[in-house]
């Protein structure tokens, strides 16, 4: 069975924030994750780009409000 976007994204989150118990939820924001600040944010974005082989623009990244937005953006980018 292939992994869903959410499962793959969860793996990226666990790797970047070095926390195997981390479980992402759509309504999750930077405030909910220890170590998610403006510095790690783009490290995360770059890792997501590598995982899903997509390229985000600055405008797309600034528009993200929570994990749900990120999932929606990945879906939009990968379905093209």
């Amino acid at each position: 069975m292939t992994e869903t976007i959410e499962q793959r994204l969860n793996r990226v989150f666990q790797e970047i924030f070095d926390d195997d118990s981390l479980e992402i939820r759509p309504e999750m924001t930077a405030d909910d994750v220890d170590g998610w600040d403006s510095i790690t944010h783009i490290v995360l974005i770059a890792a997501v780009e590598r995982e899903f082989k997509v390229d985000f623009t600055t405008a797309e990244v600034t528009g993200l409000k929570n994990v749900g937005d990120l999932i929606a953006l990945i879906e939009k980018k990968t379905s093209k």
Partner: protein
Amino acid sequence: MRFTSVDFLLFLAIAASIFRVIPAAWRAAYVLIASYAFYCTTSPRGAIALAAATLFTYAGALWCERLQGTSRAFALTTAIVGVLVAYLMFFKLVVFVPHQGITSWIVPLGISYYSFKLISYVLDVYWGKMPAARRLIPFAAYVAFFPQILAGPIQRSDDFLSQIGNGQTVLPAILRIAWGLAKKLIVADHLATAVNYVYAHVSGLHGGWWIGFYIWPLQLYADFSALTDIAIGTGRLFGVVGPENFDRPFNSTSISEYWRRWHMSFTNWLADYLFMPLRMATRKLGNVGLVMSITINTVAIGLWHGIAWGYFIFGILHSIFISFEALTAKRRKRLSKQHPEWEPARNVLGWFMTFHLVCFALVFFRAETVSDALYLLRHVASHVADFRGIFEPEGLNSARAFLIGLLGYALLELCERYRPDRWLAQIRLSGPRYLRWSLYASTALVLVIGFALLVATSGEPKNPFVYAIF
């Protein structure tokens, strides 16, 4: 007009009273007029530059919105932001080259703050975060809003525009202003004279250099956060709640945390409009890109205060601190997971290190020259007890005044932990109008009497706000 002047309190009392009685539909226009009136008392010529920059950005954003989605939108946005940055840089540089025959130029008041507001507004429109403002009056009021024009806080346009036209909240506003005035006049100014003396006589002192190292940051915090308190309180009298600027920064346990709690409206602005785009551009360069973005960001923080070596070194030092933290974050996190029992010691050590590194960098920020800064740092630990020479026997620079400042600072930290002004402000006042207004009036009266007493006992407040010059 200085926030701690009697003129300003009078201006505020009259302007806020009129705001209360005019129809809600006129509020934005009224705030605009009051803001330009305030501006013109100091700099009528600067008001023309302010109006021109406002109109330029207003029209530019509308045009940019029309081009949205085309490649020309990027070119136009770059051009508008470029003009605004050049406008800011021009005046920042002019101050530091007075010998080139352009001394007659006067730096437009508050340019460091309002140009940031304009830049982020254009970028928000370009990124599609908000539509371009159609109505010129509320937008012009946003740019010129007098409580924020001297030294921030830097409010985002969508936040401001959604509030303009609201009614005033009197009690929280007066309490916040009183809190700011007390911080400035009782804490900051009493500490300032000793600190100023140390930095004016760095190589001539017999001892007491630690005052320049440890007390200067406390003075700066009391001074700058007081300015923000007065700005936020004043804003509330005109229906607008501005963003917070400080969150007890000296309680941070890392430098990154410190920057999330110090001058927040400014650092958040830089995080969104400078650091984020830089990081996006350098994200494929790994750690090199990370350190590069951090360095550009912290040097920009330093040089925003002025073009000088001290500010540059201040920026470089923080870039080293933050880069070190970012590059070791994962390793440190793993270590603390393996040894949860170290947590309390780690917090104390983190706090101790952070506070000292912040003080260290601030010496370069404050000293007249880099060699003064180095001299002071070399002598911090020598002749610690021999500081009597710094104090005059009488006046604001007496040892007694310094002690008042220190005790005041301790009280300030305690109060900010529990924020009595917040729960006081939450008291829901019910009852007849005359009763509520008697309370407001008596609170304001206590404020004025307290202010008058302070002025009478310590002389006319002569120390301008540190951040009023940036």
